[in-house]
C-alpha cells in the first residue's frame, strides 16, 4: 500500500518534470533522464513520509 502510493507520487513528480521541460528546448533523452532522477529522489524522500501516514491511518 505504502510502496504503491510512494511510486504513484514519484511518478507524478517525474511527470510534472517532463511537463515543465515541454516549455523549453530540451532533448527527450534529457527529459527522461531528468524525470528519472527527480522520480528516484522523490521516492526516497516520500517513502518514509507516506509509510508513516499510511501507518497512522491504519491505526
Amino acid at each position, binding site marked *: 500500500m505504502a510502496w504503491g502510493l510512494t511510486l504513484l507520487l514519484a511518478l507524478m513528480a517525474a511527470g510534472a*518534470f517532463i511537463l515543465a521541460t515541454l516549455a523549453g528546448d530540451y*532533448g527527450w533523452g*534529457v527529459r527522461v*533522464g*531528468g524525470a528519472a*532522477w527527480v522520480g*528516484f529522489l522523490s521516492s526516497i524522500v516520500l517513502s*518514509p513520509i507516506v509509510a508513516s501516514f499510511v501507518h497512522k491511518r491504519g491505526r
Partner: protein
Amino acid sequence: MIECYRMGQQKLSVPIVGMTCAACVARVERALRRVPGVADVTVHLGSSQATLVLEDEVSILEIQQAVKDAGYDVPVATVRLLATRAAGAPESLQEALGFLPGVVRVEAGPKGEILVSYLEQVTSLAAIKRALREGGYQVAQAGEETALEQERRAHQEEIRRQWLNLLMAAILALFVMLGSFRDLWGLERIVPAPLANKWVLFGLTVPLMVGPARQFFVQSFKGMRQGAVDMNLLYATGIGAAFLIAVINTAWPEAGFGGEDLVFYESAAFLTLFIVLGRYLEALTRGRTSEAVRRLLELRPRRARIVREGEEVEIPADEVEVGDICLVRPGEAVPVDGVVVEGFSAVDESLVTGESVPVEKAPGDTVIGGTINRMGAFKMRATHVGSETTLAQIIRLVEEAQARRAPIQRLADWVAGHFILGVHALAIFVFLFWFFWGYGQWFQPQSRLLLGAGEMGQMGAFGFAFLMSVTVLVISCPCAVGLATPAAVMAGSGIAATNGILFRGADAVEMASRLDTVVFDKTGTLTMGRPVLTRTLALAGRGEEEVLWWASLAERRSEHPLAQAVIEAARAQNLDPPEPEMFQALPGLGVEASWQGHSVLLGNRSLMAQRQVDISPLEGEAGQLEEEGHTLLFVAVDGRALGLLAASDAIKPTSHLAIRELKAMGLRVAMLTGDNRRTATAVALRLGIDEVLAEVKPEEKARTIQQLQSQGRRVAMVGDGINDAPALAQADVGIALGSGTDIAKEAGHIILVRDDPLDVVAAVQTAHFTMRKVKQNLLWAFAYNTVAIPVAAGVLYPLTGRLVGPEVAALLMALSSLSVSLNSASMRGWRPPVRRKETEVTARPATAQEVA
C-alpha cells in the same frame, strides 16, 4: 541439531556488530521494536549495544534474526564441550540444559563435541556446565570463544575487509584517473592510448561497482526494505548515478546527457575510493575509542586456583562459587571478589579503582576480582562471583551509562535522523534550480571543478544540474552529527571507569559539567567517619567513669559510628555495662534507653531542650569544645544532666585539596551535617568551606538540597550512597562516595569506587573535559555541513566560476566524519588534572603555604 530457548528477562543488553552511523542505530531500533514482546529499545553506536526492555518472553534467536535482517549481527559466545551422557540422563540436550535462559543454540559438533552458543549478558559458562551436570552429563571443556573475542574478531575482519576494498579501489581508481585525464598534464607520453578508451574505462569501473562499492548498494537496499534510509543510500545514489550517466554517455552519446565529453567514470571511481577510505579509517578509530571499556572487560580473570579437599585445583574463574578458598600467587590476578583469610600482600587496584599505589592486604581485608597481586601469596574466601563481582558490576554500569543519551544528544539525533531525507529533498531542489534557471543564468564554459583538470566545455543543463545534485548528496555528513556526542561520551565514561568513577548515564556527565554547587555530607565523606572519644566531662559530684558507664549502656544496641566510639572508650576503661531493657534511636537527636527503672538520654542540645534537661552548668566548656570542632553528646539520667562526652572525627587527608580544587573551578562548596552550628562551623573553617548547612536531620537532607535548587543553583550532593539516598536522588547530580564492592546497590548518578573526596573533583573534571569534546565535535559537525552543503549546491559558483566535484566532496565527507572520531579518540590517555596534582603532592613534602 539447532535448538533455541526462550527467556524471561526484564532488561537485556545485546551487543550489535556492523553499525557505522546514526542511521544504523535507527534501523536496528526499528527492527528490534518489531520483535513481539520487546517494549522498548535503546541502541548506542559508541558501545555497539542494544538495551531492550522486555514485557514478555522473547527468544534470543528472534532478536538475533531481527538484527540480521536489518543487516547487522549479534555476536554470541561459543563453547565447545565434550558432554558424555550418563545412564538415565535425558537424551535431548535441550532437556538437559532445561531451557536455560541465554542459550541461543546447541549444535552437535565433530568427535562427539557439542557447540553451545550463548549470550554472555544473560548466562555464563559455569551455569551451562552446571545445568548439564545436573542433567546427568559429564562435561569437559574443549574450547571457548567469548563474545568479546568474537566481537574483536568481527572488528578485525571488518578492518581487513575495508583494507582490501581500499586497496582494490585505489588501484582501479588510479588507472581510471590516468585514462580519463590522458589528454591533460602531459600524461599522453606515459599513458597508453587504449587506456583512455571509454569502454576500457567502463571495464575498469565495473569491478569497482561490484567489489568495493557493492556494500553500499546492498546495505541501502536492505535499509529500504526496512523502510529506513541511511548514509549508504547517499553513497549508493551518488556512485550509482555517476556510473549510470557514464555508461549512457559511453553507449549512447547522443542521448543528451553531455555526450562523450562528460563521462563520470573517474567520479564514480574516486567517490568509491574516498568513501571506502573513510570506512577503513573509521573502522580503525572506532575500535580505539572503546578501548577503555575493552580494557575493563579484559581484566576479567580466566582461571582460578582453588583449594578443594586440601588440594589445589585450577578451574575457570567462571566456575568459582561463593565460599570457595582461592589461592593467589604474586603476579596473578585475583579471580573473584573476596576476603583475605591467610597471608599478606600488596594488591594493584589501579585498573579498577584508579588507586595508583598498591594497597596492602591482610586477613579480613576485601580484595576485588581482576586486580593484580603484586607481592606475597595469600588465600581468600570468595564472596561475590560471576555477575555479582565488582568488575562485572562496573562493566554493566558503564555499558548502561553508554546506552543512555545525553540531553544535548537529542538535538543531534533529531538532526541526524531527518538529515538524509532533508539532503535528498535539497538535491531535488538543487537539480531543478540549476536545470531550469541557474544554468541559463550563470553557466560559463571555461569554469572548472575544484582540483579538476579541465574546463566544463559544452556541458549541458542536465549534466551541470546533475553534477550539483550528486555533489550535494555526497558532501553531506550526518554521521559526524550522529557520532559527535556518543563517541565523546563513550570515551569519557571509559576514562572515568578506569579511574574508579562510574557515571550512570550520559545525562549525568552533562549535568556534572553544569554544576555550580557541591554539597558534601560531613561524616564519612569529608571526615573518616570513625569518631573517637576525646573528652569526658562530669558535673560536680559525679565521676567521669559514671558518665561513660551510662553512655555506653545507652549505646549498646546502637549502630551509629558515635556509639562505636563510646563503647570502645568504655572498653578501654574496662567498663562493661549491661544491655538496656529498652532502647530507641532518635534520628538526628541521639538515643533513649532505660535500665532498672532509670531513663537515660544521650544526645545533642536539641534532644536535651526537647526533654527539658538543664545543661546550663556544662555550657562553658561545651561551647569551647564545639568551637574546636568536637561533636558533643550530653548524658542525662532520670531527666538530670550528668555530664558530656566530646568526640572528634579526623578529617580525611585529601579533603582540603578536594575543596580547594573545587573552589578553584568556580564551584561553591557547602557542608551538610547534623552537628550543631558551632561544631560544624569549626570543621568547615578548618577545611576552607564557607557555607555550612548545620543541624540538618537525616530526613531533612533532601529538603535542604531542594531549597538550594529553588535558589536556581545546580547542586551535586556527595554522600553515602545508602544512607543519603533521598538527598542524592533529589540533587541534580548525586555522587555516592566509597561504595567499595556494592556498587549496584548505590543510589546516585555518579558512583565513586574509592573513599576519596578527590574523586569528586576528578569526576567533575572528567565531565567538563567530556562535554568540551562533545561541543567541539558538534560544532565541527554542524559547521561542516552548514558550510559544505551550500558550497556543493553551487552558492559560490556565480562568483567564483568553480564547482566542488563529487570526488572532492567524498573526500571532504570522509575527513569530516573521521575528524569527529579522531577528536574523541584523542581523549585516550587523558587523566583528570587533580589526579596528576595528587601524585605531585604526595611525591613531595608539603610547602609552608600548604601547611598554613
